């Protein structure tokens, strides 16, 4: 028994349980038609259910026992002058309760900690320090202190601190749930910053500002809570590293990593300023500032991704102000919380800000400084690119021949292969450089915002002019640009650049056939990903035959051609049609396990296996491919991300949810960072995450994700693209499970109409969309409307899957049932 089968058992068991005992046998027979195993299983469970008696009825530790009592004290527990009501959570140290004053009835947030004798640094003493600090900090944006004391319980001394109970939520949740706009978020953080300055003026630093410690009341006022780590005149520094990961300034983070309490510097106001910047950065972008350093430690960069690379619409002054608070160098960081607050308010009023603006050029220089080696490698790379795939594949071809030869030759061949890998790495570096240049290109000095295309093409011209000769280098440049645009998801532009590369190369000399084919594949890939598989096939079809006849061609070229060909065929004509291509390319891929093209080929094979329902087979192909990708490609390589995503999906399909979830989340996080929110690959990941959330019953999250995907796909590939329709269909299903039947129906009708117009009749998606609409109509008691849809579904299912397929049989049953239902309704009621 596997988890999906068990879910089927569960459904049927519960359905049978709800039915009356007399109708049960008939119901089970009907539902299990043909599946004797299922029938026996459910019957056996029902029999056991009847005999359960008081099995497990009384909890293991008695009927009076509940773990909840350990945390929610109810009426039984008082502490000092307070009666505990409910556990709110934990602060940095100890527990926090909602509690009511026994005499005044005032409701407070009560922090509770134990007093331990013999140590100088115990919880109770710290709570006392916190109370002392809070008594000075009378500020509307800081939760007030109502008193502190100790109480004896069971021979132990507990210290308590009563604080103003802030009825609200943490600032990040507030922003998320109220869909707060940029201005509201900025105003909130400005208010928090002013309160932090108030504390700084009294010589108190908070040291642990993070979303968890900033609450927002129902009427939208922020309150800072938890001064448990604060230092000030009454609260000496105890050597604890300040801050929550993700909100620590680089100097604090380094001290925390060093892990020597004695060496930990006393936290400064600079840490608080940084944390304020990090807070605003997170609220605006949804990411923490340390995500870059955590995910890509090899970049060794203390500064976070530019905020405007994550949210381009924030480009300009706001972005400047946020990054001013996040400067790694304490000396150059925004000098005070007051200055940060003032700049935010200037921005809100539309006035110029004081924070110095890093110009595009300075940011590019900073990038160049950081990647000195990379920039140095640029020229070499261009030469490689210009010499083209020719030299690369020449080396490879030699390597292939040598591999078949004697052992001595093999070592040489391997050395050559490594050289080829390095060359390919440099080619990728060009793409990375251009992408980074693009991200760095903030507003130009004259205020004109350069478009994506302008920056890339401009970069090409500038760098091209610096190189001695035109033709081949220019052509290589265009190809690199095309690949960069491709990496950015701008497939149409990419196609144009690569075509230009072909023209430029031709101008110089008659084009080497291999290079020509390689460029053609680039064009085909761009077409394929732009949603035009037929156009891609038109290029690939003749190429495949040409490549097959001459085994002189590099194996990588054949692989690239084949896997794109297979993908295009799969998208146009389904898995079965693509099978022969997979059979042709898999042996080639196995010959060179770590090659990127081989990995791509295996990815495609996994997809096709999956589409044929062989998920174990898909996992068997994808798992080693992922291992190879993680071992041989850079950590955030697009191919690794694809493999993570696809493998995650396969694990979900075989019921291994935790592995599936882990892989999908890793893929989605990687893509968001690597490609940004709107990139087709990111959208694909979000779509998959939505399916997972739906599966977990987290419908609201699923809906939010799907809406983002539908919007994104509608914009990039069009509202009626097959992929957009799948997302819309899933969104409708989520509306349905939320009970929003009208919205679900409208959307399903829209999807079906668009699919009918776009797809040849009888295709699988049409069957699914029709069936979903029919189901909804049945659920809303309109069997007559559902009947024609079901009839069509049955016809299609029979043609697609055969008469014996479980789906076809289920449809037949359903159809007969609905038909009877409609007929009985159309008969006049007996008098």
């Amino acid at each position: 028994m596997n988890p999906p089968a068990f879910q089927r058992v569960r459904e049927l068991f519960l359905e049978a349980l709800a039915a009356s005992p007399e109708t049960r046998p008939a119901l089970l027979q009907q539902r299990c038609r043909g599946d004797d195993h299922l029938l026996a299983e459910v019957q056996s469970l029902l029999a056991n259910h009847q005999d359960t008696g008081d099995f497990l009825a009384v909890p293991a530790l008695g009927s009076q026992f509940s773990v909840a009592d350990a945390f929610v004290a109810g009426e039984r527990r008082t502490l000092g002058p307070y009666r505990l009501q409910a556990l709110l959570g934990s602060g940095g140290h100890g527990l926090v309760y909602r509690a009511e004053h026994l005499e005044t009835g005032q409701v407070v947030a009560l922090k509770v900690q134990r007093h331990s004798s013999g140590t100088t640094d115990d919880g109770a003493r710290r709570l006392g320090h916190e109370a002392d600090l809070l008594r000075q900090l009378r500020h509307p944006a800081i939760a007030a202190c109502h008193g502190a004391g100790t109480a004896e319980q069971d021979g132990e001394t507990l210290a308590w601190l009563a604080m103003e109970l802030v009825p609200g939520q943490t600032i990040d949740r507030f922003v998320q749930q109220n869909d707060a706009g940029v201005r509201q978020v900025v105003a909130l953080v400005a208010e928090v910053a002013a309160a932090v300055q108030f504390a700084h003026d009294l010589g108190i630093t908070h040291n642990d500002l993070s979303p968890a410690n900033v609450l927002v009341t129902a009427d939208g006022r922020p309150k800072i809570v938890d001064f448990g780590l604060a230092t000030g005149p009454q609260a000496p520094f105890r050597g604890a590293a300040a801050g929550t990961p993700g909100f620590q300034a680089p100097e604090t983070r380094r001290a925390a990593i060093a892990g020597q309490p004695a060496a930990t510097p006393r936290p400064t106001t600079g840490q608080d300023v940084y944390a304020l910047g990090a807070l605003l950065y997170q609220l605006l972008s949804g990411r923490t500032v340390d995500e870059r350093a955590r995910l890509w430690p090899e970049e060794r960069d203390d500064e976070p991704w530019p905020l405007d690379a994550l949210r381009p619409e924030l480009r300009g002054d706001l972005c400047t102000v946020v990054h001013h608070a996040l400067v790694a160098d304490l000396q150059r960081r925004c000098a005070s919380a007051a200055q940060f607050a003032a700049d935010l308010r200037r921005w809100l009023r539309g006035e110029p800000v004081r924070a110095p603006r890093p110009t595009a050029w300075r940011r590019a220089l900073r990038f160049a400084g950081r990647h000195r080696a990379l920039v140095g490698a640029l020229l070499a790379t261009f030469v490689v690119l210009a010499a083209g795939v020719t030299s690369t594949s020449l080396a490879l071809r030699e390597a292939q021949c040598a591999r078949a030869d004697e052992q001595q030759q093999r070592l040489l061949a391997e050395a050559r292969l490594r050289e080829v890998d390095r060359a390919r790495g440099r080619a990728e570096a060009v793409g990375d450089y251009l992408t980074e240049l693009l991200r760095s290109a903030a507003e130009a000095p004259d205020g004109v915002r350069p478009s994506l295309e302008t920056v890339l093409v401009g970069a090409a011209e500038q760098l091209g002019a610096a190189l001695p000769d035109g033709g081949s280098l220019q052509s290589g440049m265009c190809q690199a640009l095309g690949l960069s645009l491709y990496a950015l998801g701008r497939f149409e532009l990419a196609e144009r650049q690569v075509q230009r590369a072909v023209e430029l190369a031709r101008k110089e000399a008659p084009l080497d056939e291999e290079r020509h084919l390689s460029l053609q594949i680039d064009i085909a890939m761009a077409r394929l990903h732009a949603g035009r598989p037929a156009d891609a096939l038109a290029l690939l079809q003749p190429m495949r035959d040409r490549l097959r006849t001459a085994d002189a061609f590099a194996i990588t070229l054949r692989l690239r051609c084949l896997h794109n060909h297979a993908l295009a065929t799969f998208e146009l004509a389904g898995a079965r049609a693509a099978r022969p291509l997979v059979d042709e390319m898999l042996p080639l891929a196995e010959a060179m396990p770590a090659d990127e093209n081989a990995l791509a080929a295996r990815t495609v094979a996994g997809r096709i296996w999956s589409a044929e329902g062989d998920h174990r087979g898909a996992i068997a192909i994808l798992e080693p491919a992922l291992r190879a990708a993680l071992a041989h490609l850079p950590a955030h390589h697009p191919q690794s991300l694809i493999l993570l995503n696809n493998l995650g999906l396969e694990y979900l399909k075989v019921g291994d949810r935790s592995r599936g979830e882990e892989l999908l989340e890793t893929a989605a996080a990687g893509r968001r960072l690597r490609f940004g929110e709107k990139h087709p690959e990111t959208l694909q990941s979000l779509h998959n995450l939505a399916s997972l959330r739906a599966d977990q019953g987290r419908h609201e999250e699923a809906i939010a994700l799907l809406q983002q995907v539908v919007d994104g796909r509608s914009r990039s590939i069009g509202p009626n693209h097959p992929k957009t329709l799948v997302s819309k269909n899933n969104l409708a299903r989520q509306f349905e499970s939320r009970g929003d039947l009208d919205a679900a129906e409208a959307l399903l009708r829209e999807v079906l109409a668009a699919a009918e117009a776009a797809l040849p009749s009888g295709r699988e998606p049409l069957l699914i969309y029709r069936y979903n609409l029919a189901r909804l109509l049945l659920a809303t008691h309109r069997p007559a409307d559902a009947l024609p849809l079901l009839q069509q579904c049955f016809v299609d299912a029979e043609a697609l899957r055969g008469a014996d397929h479980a789906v076809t049989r289920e449809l037949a049953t359903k159809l007969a049932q609905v038909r009877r239902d409609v007929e009985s309704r159309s008969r006049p009621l007996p008098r």
Partner: protein
Amino acid sequence: MTHSRPQPPPHGVGSANAAATSELFARVYEELHAIAHRCMRGERGAHTLQATAVVHEVFLRLVRSEGTKWSDPDHLLAVAARAVRRILVNHALARRSQRRGGGRPHLPFDDTHGVASDLPGYELIALGDALEELERLDPRQARLVELRFFGGLGAAEIARVLGVSLRTVEGDWSLARAWLRRRMAKGHEE
């Protein structure tokens, strides 16, 4: 006495929280375990430890715990319920091995509660095994049994902790009971 290592609860948290969750579980487990042990050695005198006294102790112990953050009390309930399961099953295992190996007199954990489970120790072991199997088929049902049988929570509380409807809890509960009962009656299946 040997114990299997405590496993973190299957909570729907991302990998970032996984470390914190497992640390929290280890802490709760340790606390509960220490209390149970102390009571069994009779350090608290002759009186029998009541289950409610256990939870009272847990409260005091958790108040002492420092450095672990959990923002969600429901999560804590799930952690504690799992710890109770682990302790009871481990004690049953320990008792069995002592019976086999002879030697020290056994200290029946469930007896010390006065209101102990109506399941004898060996059935607790079988239940532990069966639950592990159920966990593979449907983790949610296994957690439900944990919260209900070991944690002593009511249906409404369980629905909240698991984030599902009351009807789902009731349906899962009837299936889980039937499944576990059959599994424990006939031993391994498939």
